[in-house]
């Protein structure tokens, strides 16, 4: 099947012709299949944020083409606008963009812009709110009465309410406590399963990627330099560390244990994987104290 979203040789240069001229992206080829969960990592300034904004046409790349469902998203103005609704983009700290009097109205902003009838809008708002665990009580409140985590979830619901086929989120868990982060990731996962949507998440949380992602794209200086499964990606630990990126904690523990002489298999990136490998090792050692 054709990829739902695909880029061909995307290059983007900021502030062309001034002293601030800077290439954010240089020849990026990327694609994502329907229903796929792709993690994007890379240190600050590696071009990730610029890249995801080219995917729904917010940033027009200096050169290169973005395809959604096989056609150029810049074919016509109508096409670009249509793609905005099909490729939902959640920005960093999205709670700062809430502006309506009630959470309900804010979530309804996207569906209303799509020109949907009133009853369809409210159906979508309720559906989106339930994905992120906001009840009817919260919907009638002002966004500013909510807690930080709830506000973030309300903002994400505002994008989910458009029922995008691709949901992109830029560090959706930044600045939240572990339980708040886990909830957001679970909310996004629930939407993905129910809608069969593609999810693209920019994050610094390697554990999260190891657990959820089907594939990882590593950005460095405006290029994708690794595009592989999490296990394959994190197997290149030294390269990642050299770029200032971390490894999932399970992978780090496994590496330290290997240094101490434990013969563990490759590709351990999650806590579950590590536990299984250690059990296996214990059996192999004849039930001794490993």
């Amino acid at each position: 099947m054709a990829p739902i979203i695909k880029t061909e040789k995307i290059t983007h240069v900021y502030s062309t012709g001034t002293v601030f001229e800077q290439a954010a992206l240089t020849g990026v080829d990327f694609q994502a299949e329907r229903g796929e969960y792709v993690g994007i990592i890379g240190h600050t300034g590696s071009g990730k944020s610029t890249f995801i904004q080219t995917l729904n046409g917010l940033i027009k790349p200096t050169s290169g083409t973005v395809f959604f469902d096989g056609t150029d998203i810049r074919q016509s103005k109508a096409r670009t606008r249509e793609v905005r609704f099909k490729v939902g983009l959640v920005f960093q700290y999205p709670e700062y963009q809430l502006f309506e009097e009630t959470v309900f109205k804010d979530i309804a902003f996207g569906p209303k812009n799509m020109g949907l009838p009133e009853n369809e809008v409210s159906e979508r708002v309720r559906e989106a709110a339930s994905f992120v665990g906001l009840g009817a009580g919260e919907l009638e409140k002002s966004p500013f009465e909510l807690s930080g985590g709830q506000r973030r979830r309300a903002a994400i619901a505002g994008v989910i309410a458009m029922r995008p086929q691709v949901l992109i989120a830029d560090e959706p868990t930044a600045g939240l406590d572990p339980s708040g982060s886990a909830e957001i990731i679970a909310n996004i996962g629930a939407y993905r399963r129910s809608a069969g949507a593609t999810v693209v998440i920019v994050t610094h949380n390697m554990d999260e990627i190891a657990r959820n992602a089907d594939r990882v794209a590593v950005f460095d200086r405006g290029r994708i330099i690794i595009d592989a499964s999490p296990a394959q990606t994190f197997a290149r630990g030294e390269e990642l560390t050299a770029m200032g990126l971390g490894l999932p904690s399970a992978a780090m523990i496994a590496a330290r244990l290997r240094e101490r002489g434990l013969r563990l298999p490759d590709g351990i990136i999650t806590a579950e994987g590590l536990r299984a490998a250690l059990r296996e090792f214990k059996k192999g050692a004849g039930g001794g104290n490993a």
Partner: protein
Amino acid sequence: MLRDVTIGQYFPGGTPIHRLDPRTKLVWTVIFITALFMARGALSYALMLCVLAGCVFASRVSARALMGSIKPMLIIICITAILNVFFTRGEVIARLWVISVTREGLISAAYMASRLVMLISGTFLLTYTTSPIALTDGIESLLGPLKKIRLPVHELAMMMSIALRFIPTLIEETDKIMSAQKARGADFETGGLIKRAKALLPILIPLFISAFRRADELAVAMESRCYHGGEGRTRMKKLRMTSRDCAALALGAALPALIVVTNMLSGA
């Protein structure tokens, strides 16, 4: 888009113009503007243009950036020029119904337009080559004597530097909020006046909220570092006039005198 706004922007560099004391540059700008309004006749204008071109060349500010600063003022310049063309009495060279174009009108329009262009370029050259912090330090130092009449000079300078400091931040923030609302299908480009004004609300409300939040955070950060106004405050980087500044100021003082001379020459 918004990123390309150049008002109040500073282009870092190490040219002689960049390294001048901000007070020298401020005084020079005032002198330049005064001289610009004193100038009469082609010779004086040519001299002013040479001075400006020399400064631009020495500061290595790109012509493109300078043109960018003139662009937003273009309408005002055009209106001024057109009014001058039609409302100056003199020798009529073309007549359109009740409107007549005079030779004097055309000449004064040309002078007026070039004066405005030079005025804008000159002042922008100041902000392009002087960091906002240096600029407000310079203003505070120049206005220092006014402290005697109880003018809160330090506070005014501090307010100005904070305002300047937050221009890029707020522009960036506006850009981000606009993108986020556009991602939800907000449309700022079509529709009538009322629809467009309404479309601004999703940008303005979050922007105001974040501006207040930032102001609050900044106030807390300043107070937690014991900021209590200008009294008894010392500086890490003291402004110091060098021989280069003295030379520049001497040249500056000579400019109006030169203009008087060239005015007389072209008047003769």
